[in-house]
């Protein structure tokens, strides 16, 4: 199982789409690692510079409908190869969310209010995820412990290390 936690990268916008996470011009790469430099290259977000802001981050905190658009799993792999294994959002596009769990990674949904409290924790926030307890602990200007819901099948996928391993064992 992957490590779930790290410094938070805040992306303060709804509807961040897969073309912004990894533009189609990079989908000609045939390995996951080759995607690494192109993370969030086309993100339309004032003040955000992927070359400066990604380094050292392990968790993304964002708003509603994250990962909408294309089915490209490249949008998940580009996070994985940049050591980002958790995205926390108000809501996700279905395919992106499924791709995250299929890769044994976490797409955690919190309420709009809870997301707002994370955004209000200051610039330097560290988030740890306790999968067994279904809580996340965020340390910034203060410490917050927030419970979250995890679909039981998604939990099985994470435990198995992804859908391929799970499906190979069960079907």
């Amino acid at each position, binding site marked *: 199982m992957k490590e779930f936690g790290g410094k938070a990268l805040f992306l303060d916008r709804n*509807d961040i789409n897969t073309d*912004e996470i990894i533009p189609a011009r990079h989908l000609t790469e045939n390995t996951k690692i080759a995607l690494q430099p192109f993370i969030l290259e086309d993100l339309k977000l004032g003040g955000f510079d992927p070359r400066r802001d990604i380094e050292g981050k392990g968790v993304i905190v964002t708003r509603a409908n994250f990962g909408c658009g294309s089915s490209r799993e490249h949008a998940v792999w580009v996070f994985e190869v940049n050591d980002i294994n958790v995205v926390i959002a108000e809501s996700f596009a*279905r395919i992106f969310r499924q791709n995250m769990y299929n890769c044994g990674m976490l797409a955690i949904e919190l309420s709009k209010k809870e997301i707002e409290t994370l955004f209000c924790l200051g610039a330097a926030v560290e988030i740890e995820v306790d999968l067994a307890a279904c809580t996340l602990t965020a340390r910034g200007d203060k410490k917050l412990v927030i419970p979250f819901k995890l679909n039981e*099948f998604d939990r099985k996928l994470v435990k198995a290390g992804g*859908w391929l391993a799970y499906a190979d064992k069960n079907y």
Partner: protein
Amino acid sequence: MGKTIAEKIFAAHLRDTPTDENVILDIDVVMCHEITTPIAITDLEARGMDRVFDINKIKAVIDHVTPAKDSKTAIQGKILRDWARRHKIKDFFDIGANGVCHALFPEKGFIRPGYTVIMGDSHTCTHGAFGAFAAGVGTTDLEVGILKGVCSFRTPETIKLTITGTLQDGVSAKDVILRIIKELTVNGATDKVMEFVGPVVNSMSMEARMTLCNMAIEAGATCGICLPDRITAKYLWPFINQTYASIDLAVEDFVTWHSDSDAIYAQELTLDISGLVPQVTFGYKPDEVKNVTEMEGTPVDQVYIGSCTNGRIEDLRSAARILKGRKIAATVRGILSPATPKVYSQALEEGIIAIFMEAGFCVTNPTCGACLGMSNGVLAEGEICASTTNRNFNGRMGKGGIVHLMSPLTAAATAVLGHIADPRKLL
């Protein structure tokens, strides 16, 4: 309790229920293209699991960048081609026979009412037009589909969209779906199936129904779906005439998939489209939609007609209605990509290709290329494209480019006038 069509299809394909909320379905058709499949293939090889669950249920096409534009895309094509040959997948479509997956596969009769379909491509929802459950999936889902013939889904809820009224001349299925997405917003149908019903859908051709279902994903939906009927049966007849003794018997069978009258919906919406005018997007989200009258006069650099949304014969015919005997504006680059070789030859036969060329359009081979800024019509920074495709995301057709989505009719009128234009004035 009655069932929706999606619930009936799920019940007929149920392999497992790992939890109350999740199901594992048997998949009837697993479709593959050269952008999202190669990494699944190389991963299966690396794991020593280079197998396929059923060579007859796997369909593959090279469509996104074809002919290959560079060494990387040549390798992607080669990985898919070698794999298809190695496993003797007979339904593999390469250059000369290839076309945009969501136009080509229906044309080949691969999709039938009641089927479950997955592909590593978000616009797989197109195939719901046949009364199938068809969902776009990522590469891992595709990989498991190839290997095991199963896929996981959450139990679906359905939004019923009843479309009533009469479409005005110059207004098409594209305008209807853009209007619906505006209403639902880009995540209004997330985790849900959009079921299109009502008199307007009942009289729509399969091409129009495919346009409708194609953009269900732009409202976040898992699948768009139409109820299979006589129009479906007639379209599929060349492929099913050995299965059914008559079209009537095929229709009788198809109707068993229809949603029950007491089926339960998450939401029901009725849209009267009698007053609907052509629709055009602005901004960077497909729910940012205005009446063409509010967008008229916006200058464009390129007009693109093609894609899995609007590259079919009816789309080309409708654009040709406007282009016939006219020239496109000198400031506009017009590009037509017929979606499949069949569409291309039919358009040639009907004189439609000549109309496009005399108007000043460039005609490319069938490919997805320009729609996602990969080839055959990539925009430069700051350029504006009027496009019959399905996504106006920032940079979608080229870094820094801007896309306005519209119908083929509106795109043709825009090409002629050099700025976004109301096609009704040129009919």
